[in-house]
């Protein structure tokens, strides 16, 4: 199995799907001639030409609308947002049109659009470029949201997203783009709505998604080595649909849950998961559910402070020990 980066895994997914299905197209700001703002689409213009890989004007509302219209007629556009933060200027398209057309057409019109791009803080790009809108978007029925944490999942989820007949929003992370991991050469998908146990354990369940999974795995390592605690890490991979059963099965095994995410805490993904656990596994809980999320403030510009704003292993360890007391 080849060891490639998260960025290369995403690119491989798009490349393979461009080859597999002539209806797949790539669109977005600088995706073609500039090879992508973060070089995810590097080389695709050269390989597939300007009809399949299209640079768009700097107008998110306009080009996302273009992609939605195309998808309603059978094209499978993969739209890049330079940052998911910019989806906010295209909110009507992203939520209202893409999310509701199948329902409002009585099932006659599908919208197989993929919107992808980085959705993360931690890179010192300021409050307006660091949003993590997975909770906001996942709160709308009709929309699917995935957050890969590893190269394997990035490729598998991207391919699943492109083949899905509903709008699927892929939230990537610029900090993970250079992370390397084993990725099969042969065709595979990671089904949307299936969580993954990234580490098995018996004493505590950590539920995380995106980069918080990596942070949690580091914390689990420390907890095991320094505190003799066996931690299970559940990677949601998909925010909506949510794999409730995998979360609940793990909590039923360990009886303690810590939820880690890079979102701000208020109405975050983990607020929903905490509700789920107490509603369906109340009698399994041996301790209150814990949460570690970003500090509840606009994303801090100071790099040093921003590093503390996001969850980091020591904070996860501290929260875990509190639950394990």
């Amino acid at each position: 199995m080849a060891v490639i980066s998260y960025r290369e895994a995403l690119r491989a997914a798009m490349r393979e799907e461009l080859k597999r299905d002539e209806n797949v197209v790539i669109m977005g700001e600088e995706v073609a001639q500039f090879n992508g703002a973060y070089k995810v689409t590097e080389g695709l213009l050269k390989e597939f030409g300007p009809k399949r890989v299209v640079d768009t004007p700097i107008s998110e509302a306009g080009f996302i609308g273009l992609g939605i219209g195309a998808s309603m007629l059978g094209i499978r556009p993969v739209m890049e947002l330079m940052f998911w933060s910019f989806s906010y200027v295209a909110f009507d398209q992203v939520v209202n049109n893409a999310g509701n057309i199948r329902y409002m057409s009585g099932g006659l019109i599908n919208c197989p659009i993929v919107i992808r791009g980085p959705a993360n803080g931690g890179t010192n790009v300021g409050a307006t470029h660091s949003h993590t809108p997975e909770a906001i978007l996942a709160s709308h029925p009709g929309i699917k949201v995935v957050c890969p944490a590893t190269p394997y999942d990035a490729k598998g989820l991207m391919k699943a997203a492109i083949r899905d007949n509903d709008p699927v929003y892929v939230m990537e992370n610029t900090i993970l783009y250079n992370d390397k991991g084993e990725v099969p050469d042969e065709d595979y998908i990671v089904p949307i709505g299936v969580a993954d146990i990234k580490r098995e354990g018996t004493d505590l369940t950590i539920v995380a998604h995106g980069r918080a999974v990596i942070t949690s795995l580091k914390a689990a390592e420390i907890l095991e080595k320094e505190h003799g605690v066996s931690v299970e890490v559940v990677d949601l991979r998909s925010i909506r649909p949510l794999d409730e059963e995998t979360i609940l099965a793990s909590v039923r095994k360990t009886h303690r849950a810590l939820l880690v995410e890079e979102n701000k805490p208020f109405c975050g993904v983990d607020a929903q998961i905490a509700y789920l656990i107490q509603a369906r596994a109340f009698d399994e809980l041996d301790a209150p559910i814990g949460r570690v999320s970003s500090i509840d403030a606009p994303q801090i510009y100071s790099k040093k402070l921003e590093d503390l704003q996001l969850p980091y292993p020591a904070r996860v360890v501290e929260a875990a020990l509190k639950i394990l007391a």
Partner: protein
Amino acid sequence: MAEIIDMPKLSDTMSVGTVVKWNIKEGQTVAFGDILAEIETDKATMELSCTVPGAILKIYADAGSQLPVGEPICAIGKKGEAAPEPKKAAPPKASAPAIPESTGIPCIPEAPASSSTPVAAQSDGSRTKVSPYAKRMAEKAALNVAALSGTGPGGRVVGRDVNAAANAPVAAAPAGPINVAVAPPADGKGVQPDSDAPVSGMRATIARRLVESKNTVPHFYLEVEVDAAPLLALRETLNKRLAESSAEAGLKLSVNDFILKASAEALRRVPAVNASWAGTSIRQHSAVHLAFGVALEDGLVTPVIRDAHSKSLRDIAVDAKGLIAKARSKKLSPAEMSGSTFTVTNLGMYGVTGFYGIINTPNAAILSVGATIKKPVVDANDRVVIGQRMAIGLSGDHRVVDGANGAQFLQALKQILEEPTLILI
């Protein structure tokens, strides 16, 4: 529309109740406030009053029958209306309050009922913190979480505590009834016929609580002999004066009243004994709430004199008398039997010379008072004289109290009892 009245949950720990007596008959009309029945819980016999006026359509549970909380006991509706078929109640859930499903007002118990929180309350009135998982495990293992020492944050009982208790060899309950069969008397005439009496709610509570105490509390025992002559003399003088006083008609001080008062005073001097084991902490109690044992025909109850530390001998005597009367008529409310910080038991009236009680958890100690007996003693001048001696035993929870604290307490108690005029001020 007829309403089914269910067995109410009248105490935190009540899971079954016994209909002691019905005050009404089928067909009878009942009004708001009428006493429908007397219900025996694990702690007391309580009156069930009614706030659903109408006619008694049907009595489902005969007097004497014991049934789980939530099971139908009677139905009230319009005269002549057909009695509803009671639904077989689901297995009783501790969390399900017994409130009939209707727009009507449910029957409420006459005695102040505590909230229907599914978690057992400590007898000092504080809530036992227990995780949902531990609670479920304890239910499965038939363990009372209130008796476990919680090792979680703030003394919360967590899964590992239940595991430890369930795996403790002493706690392993035999499955099914215990075989107690023995051969009948060879001559055919025994002291009584062989019979099996069902365990009453009170007896079951006594059994459960004392097994828990003896199994979980490391008891240690101290004894001291007290010169009771000054106490008996003072009592005689006081009772004589009280008998002559019209204002205090009927008030007579018992030896036990003096011991209760002296215990409260000794606890004030040695407050380390007025404490409870709380798992990760030891709670020192500011008030002395004094429980004392009252023997009943079919068991034993321990009513509580509140704030005994600030009560006079007279007030303690009056309180004790009232509580004893209530205990004998089984009218003590759960509140009157909970929240103690120390317990006094007395078997002196039976001539028992000395004994050691089992600690009434979560108290840290129990005082056991024996009879006052005449015996030769060596006095201060090394002469053998006739003494009035009373043996007093103390069982202490060694997690909370050490031998030295316990001894200091007994020393204080001895001094107070031997110079009893001190307790009059």
